[in-house]
């Protein structure tokens, strides 16, 4: 491991979209704004790939913003975990951006304005900032940047209820962010520092006192809202459902994943896993929440009438798998969490693209109106089928790989009975997935179904096919990906961020 401080890559990852966003407004032309969005997406993906390459070469990137050394200044840190999450979200973002060019399928004019693209860029900039930062307060600031942009993006949905969904998310999100701020305050109060590595060292020296434990609790609740941890998931189904299609793709592939990453980072770096277990049964709280989520959310999904919201509930369920992995606290558990984070990002992004196209083409989101729709919209429906099978975790799909790794991790931890709810969760997913498959293939066609042209535009199918190809590839050959996830997990769990010092 070698420390690299001279490279500007970590900061470029964040400021490229951040600079392009105001430029969108200044130029005020929607074609240019689209171009900026796409440019930023390509550049960010390139940067994250370069960072990943560097990390695989054994480098760790540190960037001192303003030239002030931490802990006085703010620093960025890119280690294997960071690089892994960066690559994931920027990959999904790139494809979501391409998909966004298709024009969001009947969403109001808002989504074509330069300010929409500016908000989009701010959102992804904030998310990237949350990932690379190594400063607790800076995390809060970027959390807010991404959150605000997200609320706006959601409110651009085609249905008026998008406004209500955005408002509810705003209230919940603001409460969550305030919890995070409170937690950062309590930590700062007890340690006098904001830098995460420094915090970790100081907490390790000082040990746990009640203030720090409460900081941890509030942090978990606050960030739990953002990542839709099971009982705190209330905002997610409507937000996903009513957001414009491309925004749903973006959110499902990036926003919750970043929040999960932050949860992981805090639990393992800041409060090293031992500490969490000693101070409070946090691991079990997370595992219980996760298990409840993976069992109950599919049942709600099964009763859901809207296709898009059904998959939103499915996201709640799938996030629970990641939460269980985080809760396990072992290297294998974290690796499983990271792996599923990646797999679920690409699968769900693909599914939401397909759902968006299907709803646009048929003119309905109600599942019971989708009878026999597969015979008219074959391609999209097969993509949905493939995504669904992957969510169930059938062998040969990425979902199986992450399930396998997670169940192995669960058994490794010695609690093999925990494998049963995890497996039952995938069975529960099968129930709602099969409901729509049955509808789309075997139920009689609905009369009111609009006979829309079934052709799919290049910018629509291209990102979907790329995601599907990735899903197939990583379902059949996951050694490389799992290797990176293992590397990232062991760097997080075994050595911790303190190694950077």
């Amino acid at each position, binding site marked *: 491991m070698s420390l690299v401080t001279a490279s500007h890559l970590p900061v470029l990852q964040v400021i490229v979209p951040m600079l392009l966003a105001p430029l969108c407004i200044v130029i005020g032309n929607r074609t240019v704004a689209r171009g900026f969005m796409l440019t930023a997406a390509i550049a960010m993906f390139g940067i994250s790939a370069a960072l990943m390459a560097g990390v695989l070469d054994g480098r760790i990137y540190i960037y001192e913003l303003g030239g002030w050394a931490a802990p006085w200044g703010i620093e960025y840190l890119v280690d294997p975990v960071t690089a892994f999450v960066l690559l994931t979200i920027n990959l999904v973002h790139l494809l979501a951006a391409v998909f966004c060019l298709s024009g969001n399928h009947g969403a109001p004019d808002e989504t074509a304005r330069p300010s929409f693209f500016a908000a989009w860029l701010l959102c992804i900039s904030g998310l990237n900032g949350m990932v690379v930062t190594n400063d607790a307060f800076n995390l809060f600031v970027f959390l807010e940047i991404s959150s605000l942009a997200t609320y706006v993006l959601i409110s651009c949905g085609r249905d008026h209820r998008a406004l209500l969904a955005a408002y509810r998310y705003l209230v919940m999100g603001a409460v969550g962010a305030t919890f995070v701020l*409170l937690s950062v305050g309590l930590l700062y109060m007890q340690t006098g520092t904001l830098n995460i590595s420094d915090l970790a060292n100081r907490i390790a020296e000082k040990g746990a006192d009640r*203030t720090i434990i409460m900081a941890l609790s509030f942090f978990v609740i606050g960030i739990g809202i953002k990542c839709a941890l099971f009982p705190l998931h209330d905002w997610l189904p409507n937000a996903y459902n009513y957001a414009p299609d491309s925004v749903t793709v973006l959110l499902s592939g990036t926003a919750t994943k970043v929040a999960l990453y932050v949860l992981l980072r805090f639990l393992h770096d800041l409060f090293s896993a031992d500490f969490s277990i000693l101070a409070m049964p946090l691991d079990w709280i997370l595992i219980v929440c996760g298990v409840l989520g993976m069992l109950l959310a599919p049942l709600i999904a099964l009763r859901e009438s809207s296709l898009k919201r059904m998959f939103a509930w499915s996201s709640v369920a799938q996030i629970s798998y990641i939460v269980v992995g985080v809760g396990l606290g072992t290297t294998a558990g974290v690796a499983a969490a990271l792996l599923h984070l990646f797999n679920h990002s690409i699968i769900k992004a693909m599914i939401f693209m397909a759902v968006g196209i299907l709803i646009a083409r048929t003119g309905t989101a109600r599942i019971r109106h989708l009878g026999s729709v597969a015979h008219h919209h074959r391609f999209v429906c097969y993509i949905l089928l493939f995504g669904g099978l992957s969510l169930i975790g059938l062998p040969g799909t990425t979902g199986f790989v992450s399930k396998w790794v997670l169940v192995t991790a669960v058994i490794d931890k010695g609690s093999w009975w925990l494998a049963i709810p995890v497996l039952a969760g995938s069975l529960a997913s099968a129930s709602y997935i099969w409901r729509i498959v049955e509808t789309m293939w075997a139920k009689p066609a609905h009369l009111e179904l609009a006979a829309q042209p079934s052709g799919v535009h290049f910018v629509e199918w291209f990102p979907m096919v790329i995601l599907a190809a990735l899903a197939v590839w990583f379902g059949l050959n996951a050694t490389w990906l799992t290797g990176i996830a293992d590397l990232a997990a062991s760097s997080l769990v075994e050595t911790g961020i303190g190694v950077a010092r």
Partner: protein
Amino acid sequence: MIDMINIGMDIGLLGVLLACALLILRSGSLLAIILLSAAYSLSICALFVILDAVDVAFTEAAVGAGISTVLMLAVIRRQDESLHAPRWPSAISVVTGLGLGLLLIVGTLDMSMYGNPLAPVHLHLAPRFIGQSGAETGIPNVVTSVLASYRGYDTLGEVVVIFAAGLSVLLLLPSANTETGEEHEDRQRRAWIADNPILKAALLRVIPLVLLFALYVQFHGDYGPGGGFQAGVIFGAGVITFGLLCGLGKLLAILSERWVSIGMAAGVLLYAGTGVAAMWRGGNFLDYSTLAETPTAGQHTGILLIELGVGITVAFTMISLFICFSRGRD
């Protein structure tokens, strides 16, 4: 002695805060709630001054008591001014609130006592900021130097958040909508300031002073409380006053919406551009030391520029918020 007075005032103000909060909880009139929340903000401002946080107090006065209240007042309509306040808090809020409250109380038990100079919070980062920031940045106001330089990146984030809010309002309340009859009536009702010639004449004369004061706050932030954010708010308030007096049409004639949004973006670009310029000159992002011959001069230049960026974005965002909220078309 002074400490005793301070503690006495502290306790008194805390009492006022609690009273305001309880009244807000129980009140059934939206107007009353908004005014109570302004009173709350002013009290907490005073408290911040007692607690030596003059910059924060300044900001809270401008934001909590000022901008927030104005925005709220601009938004409320007659039909939602009165609401049914619940007689008792609901079970879920009591359980959640008490649960979290108790957790926090437990959390306070290991904290250092109020004002303890040996608390860990005062021992790690703060000594360097207080002891060396003067030499390192050449700026006496430690809050400004930390805000603009040591943690300048957070401040960039803050400006971006403001910009995002401005953006969102642009997206959510575009100019193409038409006014409903009720909304029109509401606007008429609130147009009384403009109809009062004496008040109008007096206020119009004050506006240049307000703008001048904004510039003072902008550039004096290095030496005393103030800075780009407060200046921006004040500048915006000045322009808003003009808009209130002479009507939105006149304001838009001078300053079209397009320019307002460009102004919003320009501040962010100035700020981030300063950072990029630092990179260009071989430093890290936002490392102002590279901007001039000596590091201190560079810091000075950089802080001047970014504070200006903050001021521009904040001012134009405030104006934009005002325009969008009070367009009458609502």
